[in-house]
């Protein structure tokens, strides 16, 4: 995997080199990979760049709908009054230059690299899980257990259900198991796909905050829509001395903030972990090109060292890919479990559990 990364990154390095001549634009390379883009760069062979130009879909309040290929942006950098800005909060995004010179951010529905990555990962996930499910449709429970890939899937599913979902959600865990399993496998697959640098994989899906936010929103809605009366009672009228909630609703206020901090924590944790991992691997890759400029004496040993570290980091990231999917699923399961308290004593026990897991 590290080797593939080495193969793919020079391509990226070379196109920034031509732009800025001699210096290696480390920041540009790293952010270019971490951020979303309107085209999917696949490989550069010699002078020829092979990349996938993705469709751009924009809605501007001023000029209405716009559909075009991102190829149009390549030559002049702007098309139909839109150009990719370099600065401000929308750096790297298309903005419209209005006739009076001001810039407007349109509603950007473009099928970007991340969006396409999500679709590819979704299809892959569906194929993988439905193939596995097909095995079960064709076998009886009295048949011997499956081997090979189906066996691996069953092992992971059983582990997540038994170790994460069952103890965290509690009594009616079976209702939530499919949803939580889907979250787990979606994140796991996206994380792993993000680590593979060649085409169908390689989009930094779970390192995009919009994606992690959407995943956290799934948990948020599951928690708050299916939360029972006891849950809402504990938020709005918790079991504390009256002065903490009567004149000024101090504790209810904190609890209500807690409703929103939980998905926020989920969002940022996954996003930050994946982004950090990718940034480290890319930085280590850039070490090769920076030290190569300093001549072979420094460049050669540093290259060896950097490749060694990259292999190490990739293996670590593989572990992180699993751990983050696991943690996201576990916290979602805990939040769901918290939203369905049965009685007071049972709830306190879960809360202690929750605090323990939050610190990890």
């Amino acid at each position, binding site marked *: 995997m590290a080797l593939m990364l080495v193969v793919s990154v020079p391509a990226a390095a070379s196109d920034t080199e031509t732009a800025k001549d001699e210096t290696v634009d480390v920041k540009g390379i790293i*952010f270019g990979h971490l951020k979303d883009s309107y085209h999917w760069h696949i490989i550069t062979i010699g002078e020829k760049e092979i990349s996938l130009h993705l469709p751009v879909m924009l809605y501007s309040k001023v000029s209405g709908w716009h559909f075009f290929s991102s190829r149009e942006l390549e030559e002049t950098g702007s098309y139909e009054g839109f150009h990719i800005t370099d600065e401000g*909060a929308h750096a790297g995004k298309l903005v419209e230059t209005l006739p009076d010179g001001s810039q407007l951010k349109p509603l*950007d*529905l473009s099928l970007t690299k991340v969006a396409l990555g999500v679709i590819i990962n979704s299809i892959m996930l569906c194929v993988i899980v439905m193939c596995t499910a097909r095995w079960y449709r064709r076998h009886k*429970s009295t048949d011997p257990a499956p081997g090979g890939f189906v066996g691996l899937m069953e092992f992971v599913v059983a582990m997540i259900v038994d170790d994460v979902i069952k103890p965290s959600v509690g009594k009616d865990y079976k209702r939530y198991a499919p949803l939580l399993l889907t979250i787990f496998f979606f994140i796991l697959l996206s994380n792993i796909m993000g680590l593979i640098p060649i085409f169908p994989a390689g989009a930094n899906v779970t390192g995009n905050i919009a*994606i992690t936010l959407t995943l956290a929103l799934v948990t948020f809605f599951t928690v708050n829509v299916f939360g029972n009366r006891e849950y809402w009672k504990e938020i709005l009228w918790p079991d504390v001395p009256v002065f903490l909630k009567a004149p000024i609703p101090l504790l209810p206020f904190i609890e209500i903030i807690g409703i929103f901090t939980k998905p926020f924590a989920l969002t940022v944790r996954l996003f930050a972990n994946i982004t950090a991992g990718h940034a480290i691997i890319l930085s280590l890759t850039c070490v090769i090109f920076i030290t190569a400029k300093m001549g072979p004496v420094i460049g050669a040993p540093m290259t060896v060292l950097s490749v060694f570290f990259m292999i190490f980091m990739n293996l670590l990231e593989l572990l992180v890919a699993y751990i983050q999917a696991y943690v996201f699923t576990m916290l979602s399961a805990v939040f769901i479990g918290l939203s369905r308290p049965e009685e007071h004593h049972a709830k306190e026990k879960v809360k202690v559990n929750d605090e323990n897991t939050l610190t990890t």
Partner: protein
Amino acid sequence: MDLLIPEVGTIIWMLIAAGIVFFILVKWGFPMITRMVDERDEYIDKSLLAAKEANERLAGIQNECDELLKETRAEKARILKEATDRRDEIIAEAEARAKESGEKLIADAREQIRLEKEEALRSMRRQVAELSVQVAERVVLKELSTDEDQLLLIDRMIDDVKTGK
């Protein structure tokens, strides 16, 4: 900083893609797998219980077998003993009977022999008598010419008869 701002377009794409994926997998994907895993667990539990039961029963059967074997051994020994007794009895009986019949046979044979001997003796005597009569006839016919001689002869004959007896 722009990394931290979620793009609405991406959220919408994610919602569409993930919505479809979640719907498919939550409805048809994972329940299939988890249900089967549960069913298999249940089946394994049941099988284990059944195996335990079967083992217990097997142990019971083993015990029964052992007991039966012991009983059978005892029975065998008893039967063998009985058979030996019976055999001895039969042999003794047979011996007795054989002895008896042998004795009887011998007795019969002896009787037969005695009768035959008597018969033979009787016939011999008769023949001797006849023979002597014939001889006497001849002698008488030839030598009974003189009185002296005749008397002598008679005396002798009588003596003979006396000693012959």
